[in-house]
């Protein structure tokens, strides 16, 4: 992102925001409420239009090739994007089918099953309606959709929220595994300890700009 200016109504959520994230890098965004963390993620996904600036994802301009770029992105936001009346498996299957991963039906089925198992959603849980799950379990289902889709960029907004300690550790493992496979991860987090542990870079935002940057190897 280069020189990105984005407004939420008349409020300047990002004012001249610059960030360059490498393939396989894990970047954590920190900052007080309203600093622009969520906006950065939504702008990167092309969900919020920008007034000025350039956003390039995987070498393509988001504004020019939005639809095909989005297929390579996965966003886990505050809302999980799940259908409460469908089962856990149906939700993940729908995400994989709708996103058109290009995998054959049998490969898609295998990746759904593997993702459910990895997130601890196999057994009886996989046939349960999402409406009957706890907030943490729903978060796991949303993560399973992300894992099953095998996208190139993860955009995570407060991903540790609602998860139990085991779930948080599992998420950290998943992020590390994804980064090792070359997946780029950008996450907004208030969990400073975890952000420091798993991120290659931690950026502190305030007023829609980066105010400090700490780089280290996780």
């Amino acid at each position, binding site marked *: 992102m280069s020189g990105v200016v984005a407004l939420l109504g008349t409020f300047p959520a990002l004012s001249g925001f610059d960030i360059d994230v490498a393939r396989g890098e894990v970047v954590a965004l920190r900052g007080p409420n309203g600093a622009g963390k969520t906006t950065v993620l939504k702008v990167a*996904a*092309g*969900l919020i239009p920008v007034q000025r600036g350039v956003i390039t994802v995987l070498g393509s301009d988001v504004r020019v090739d939005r*639809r*095909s*770029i*989005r*297929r390579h*992105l*996965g*966003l886990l*936001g*505050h*809302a*999980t*994007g*799940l*259908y*409460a*009346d*469908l089962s856990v498996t*149906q939700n993940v299957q*729908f*995400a994989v*089918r*709708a*996103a*058109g991963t290009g995998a054959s039906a049998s490969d898609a089925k295998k990746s759904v099953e593997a993702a459910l198992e990895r997130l601890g959603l196999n057994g009886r849980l996989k046939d349960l*309606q999402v409406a009957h799950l706890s907030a943490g379990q729903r978060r796991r289902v949303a993560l399973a959709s992300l894992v099953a889709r095998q996208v190139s960029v993860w955009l995570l907004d407060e991903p540790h929220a609602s998860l139990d300690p085991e779930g948080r550790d599992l998420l950290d493992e998943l992020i590390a595994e994804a980064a090792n496979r070359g997946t780029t991860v950008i996450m907004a987090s208030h969990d400073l300890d975890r952000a420091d542990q798993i991120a290659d870079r931690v950026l502190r935002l305030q007023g829609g700009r980066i105010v400090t940057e700490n780089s280290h190897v996780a």
Partner: protein
Amino acid sequence: MWRDARIVMAKDLAIERKAKVALRQVLPFVFSLVLLFAFALDRVLVDDPLVSGDTVPVPFVAPGVFWLAVLFSAVLLIQRSIGLEVDDGSWDQLRLWGIDPVGVFVGKATVVALQLFVIELILGVAMTAAFQVSLPRTASAISLLLIVAVLTTIALSAIASCYGALSAGIRVRETLVPVLLLPVTVPLLLASVQAWQGAFTAETSSGWAWVRLLGVLCVIYVATGVLSYGALMEE
């Protein structure tokens, strides 16, 4: 596009199979509505088109009551259809998955149309009994009834889906959808009621004239959805 439409359709049908909102909530609402109409119109209805005076023959009133009930059902069904996507952020996920907006439109409008067809069928049988309407017997009148039902349902589902998408990101969408949708459906309601009155009163030639208008409205509403749904999803 067709692949995405099939995926969205299968998902919405799976949700309806689980939740049964159309059968358990919309249908009882429609029955209540028709019952209220029947009570309200009790003193002005007779079942004879030749009777004059202060009374109105049932064949003239029943189509209006039927299509109004279907229109209100469409409002409820589209609120539900869009609510599914908006309530937990699925609308953004659909956009992120790069799914074809026309596929979303076709898939969602088709499911609303299928639900409306089922409601129309059950409501038609119930109203025939409750209002003691004599069904038309000629092939021309029967085909007029069916073609009007198909065209009206497709047009209504298409335009309702457009307004559903338009209101998706708005907090007051529950109240906004009927306010926006009902005025636009006036020509549709008028044409379908007039065409059915023609079928019920054996004046099928006048009924067929209204079918042409229905056909034009159907094409306009479907084309509106196809052309605008992408922009509506993004806004």
